[in-house]
């Protein structure tokens, strides 16, 4: 056990830092930078070289990422393309799909979105009702999707649809790539309780998709989607495990971030030191009750950081992450709730309504309004606990009556 670099790691770090310093410069356009990353394979270092990756080891990828952050260079294209759609296409797509989609995804030229959730299929994602009907070499899609991020920006969507409602629910699903510019795709922003519209509803009316854009076999959609979702959970869980820049200046710029979700992500990424600083500014650093609250939140940050080292170590050794990674999203949700509550505590009566010029209270207010989402999206806390207990702890699934009967015969209630 040694958290310091091995000689080989130190060597690699030096080399990658050199490459980064040579290739990234302050002020270059995002497009230029994405191109550099894609050309060099660093946009998705773990992908095979033939699909635009580097075939790098996890260790290389992690050190590259650390050094990239250290010099302040932007990350590769985010959104669901590279982390979720890409690995799914690599694992389940046709060669043609790989050649067509992966390169522009890596360059950030084509944004992707996810068309999974529906009003009647939230926790029970396999309950999707969007229909895919075959018509020659094409499929005709009808249905409604919700909670789609970046739908307006997206060129492509990964889509789960039901090709046969007479089959049991998990067996009647097929996975497609949907052209978001196709006729019949209507995108309606969905206003959330924060007052913002980060998400969208997507209405699909007689949208035609060529059979070439099917990912995996007919009826394999559920299986294919598992690849996507495992990658999503990993991304959501790892999100909270970033490095904590102790001592970083606290200017609370994130209170001005475009969306509350961003505010949350940015504030959490500052690490616990920000809370210490804000406690001092609020004049509560000597208050014994505040101190206990602070110590508890601080501890949550730190145990997540330490758990992050365990996960990173496993990844760098080329192992899959262990049991400690399975609770990542739950731990992250616990942390953000605690942080929001702590900021509310520091705000005092200011929690009634943050003055515009008080960035601490503003951040508190934004976080407080957005945290209820964290324990819902990407699988509710309850669903996370089911997954952990069943897949990690080997506890049996509950007896259920919906898995083996035709989808069309399953009882359905309110959307």
């Amino acid at each position, binding site marked *: 056990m040694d958290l310091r670099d091995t000689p080989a790691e130190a060597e690699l770090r030096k080399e990658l830092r050199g490459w980064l310093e040579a290739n990234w410069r302050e002020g270059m356009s995002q497009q230029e930078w994405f191109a550099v990353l894609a050309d060099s394979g660093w946009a998705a270092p773990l992908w095979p070289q033939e699909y635009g990756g580097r075939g790098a080891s996890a260790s290389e990828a992690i050190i590259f990422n650390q050094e990239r952050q250290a010099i302040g260079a932007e990350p590769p294209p985010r959104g669901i393309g590279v982390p979720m759609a890409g690995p799914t296409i690599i694992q389940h797509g046709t060669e043609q799909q790989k050649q067509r989609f992966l390169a522009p995804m890596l360059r950030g030229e084509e944004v992707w979105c996810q068309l999974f*959730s529906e*009003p*009647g299929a*939230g*926790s*029970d994602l396999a*309950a999707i009702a969007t229909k895919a009907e075959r018509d020659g070499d094409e499929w005709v899609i009808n249905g409604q999707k*919700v*909670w789609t991020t970046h739908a307006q920006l997206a060129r492509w969507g990964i889509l789960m649809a039901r090709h046969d409602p007479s089959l049991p629910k998990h067996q009647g699903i097929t996975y497609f790539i949907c052209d978001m510019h196709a006729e019949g795709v209507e995108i309606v922003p*969905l*206003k*959330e*309780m*924060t*007052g913002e519209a980060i998400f969208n509803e997507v209405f699909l009316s007689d949208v035609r998709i060529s059979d070439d854009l099917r990912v995996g076999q007919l009826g394999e959609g559920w299986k294919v989607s598992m690849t996507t979702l495992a990658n999503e959970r990993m991304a959501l869980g790892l999100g909270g495990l970033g490095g904590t820049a102790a001592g970083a200046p606290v200017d609370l710029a994130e209170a001005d971030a475009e969306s509350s979700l961003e505010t949350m992500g940015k504030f959490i990424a500052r690490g616990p030191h920000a809370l210490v600083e804000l406690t001092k500014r609020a004049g509560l650093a000597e208050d014994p*009750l505040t101190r206990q609250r602070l110590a508890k939140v601080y501890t949550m940050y730190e145990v997540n950081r330490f758990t992050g080292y365990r996960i990173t170590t496993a990844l760098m050794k080329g192992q899959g992450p262990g049991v400690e990674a399975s609770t990542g999203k739950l731990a992250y949700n616990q942390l953000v709730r605690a942080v929001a509550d702590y900021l*509310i*505590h520091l*705000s*005092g*009566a*200011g*929690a*009634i*309504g*943050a*003055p*515009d010029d*008080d960035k601490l209270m503003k951040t508190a*207010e934004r976080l*407080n*309004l957005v945290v*209820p*989402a964290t*324990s*819902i*999206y990407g699988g*509710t*806390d*309850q669903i996370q*606990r089911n997954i952990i207990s069943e897949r990690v702890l080997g506890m049996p699934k*509950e007896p*259920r*009556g*919906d898995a083996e*009967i035709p989808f069309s015969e*399953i*009882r*359905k*209630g*309110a*959307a």
Partner: protein
Amino acid sequence: MNFAFNDEQREIQAGAKRLMEETAQLDRVLEIAATPEGFDRDDYAQLAELGWTGLHIPEQHGGVGLTYVELVVVLEQMGMALYPSPFFASICMAASALIEGAAAAPLSDDNAALLAAIAAGEKTATLAYVEPGGRYRPPDVKLTARADGGDFVLDGTKSYVVDGHTADAIVVVARTGEADGEIALFAVPGDAPGLTRSEAHSVDQTRKVATLEFNGVRVPAAAAIGEPGNAWPTLNSTMQLAGVALAAESLGAAQHCFDTALAYTKDRFQFGRPISSFQAVKHICADLLMAVEQSRSATYYAGWAAAQQRDELPVVGPLAKAQVHDAFWDAARANIQLHGGIGFTYEHEAHYYYRRATAARAMLGDGDFNREMMLQGLGLAPA
């Protein structure tokens, strides 16, 4: 012994429920809350007609002379609907301050007239206590009242004054000297020269708050409630009473969150079953039932103490404020969680209750503060 509502109280309850059904459906509530005044003057006149604006105000001050228990009955129904009204500010804060003050020193003619006008619903009023960045503790009162001839001159700023931008009169908490307890209360007309009022942002979209700037606002000595410089006990019991009132509103709101969530879990199917059949959901609901029922017990008892058992009020007032707002918070959170994605949309009502829970929990001091007050009420002095 009868720890249940009597016939008259049940009648008031039924009347309040009916009025809310008629006038406080959520879309109308939001419409009214979106107006600059934040309430409907005809609605308020109706409250006065029903006698509710004078419910707990003694008859000699123009009120109906009932007790705090009847007030609790009405407030619970109002809270359930997030009813937008200066009722809380005017009746449960300002009027209580005047009534409590009258126990310390006779009301001046002006103040007696004000109380009668509040009781009749002819005027609205509010209480201005907390200041920017401040908390509900004596040293946080920085607004000064300087004696000048027979008058007092007020300088300072008050925050989060409930319905303060529309109130006809403001009961303002001011400092007359350096010592913690040197506190005075004055009733100041809403249009007093030197007083600038502006609606302030609140996370709770169904209750307005205002920022009030006092720049050399001059009031006569007769504006004082109780004895200037010695009004801490009056303020203290006013806050205890206001805490019970807010608890009653929030009890109703918490009950509504719970009822709504429970009903939804029975309608919503996932995995071929209503989600109400899942143990995780059932156990959340069982715990919420307990929290809400315990809050009901605490609120009703505190109402009874406010009415008849005043020696217990310093303990059970803050106790109820803390207990109910913890439960309301849990219920508002759980309501969103049990609704899943739909509960996080702006169109769904859940967030209005969550916003109310956030603001009401902070208003009149948070849980830690009220628990500390409760211990002081028990005679346990802090360090």
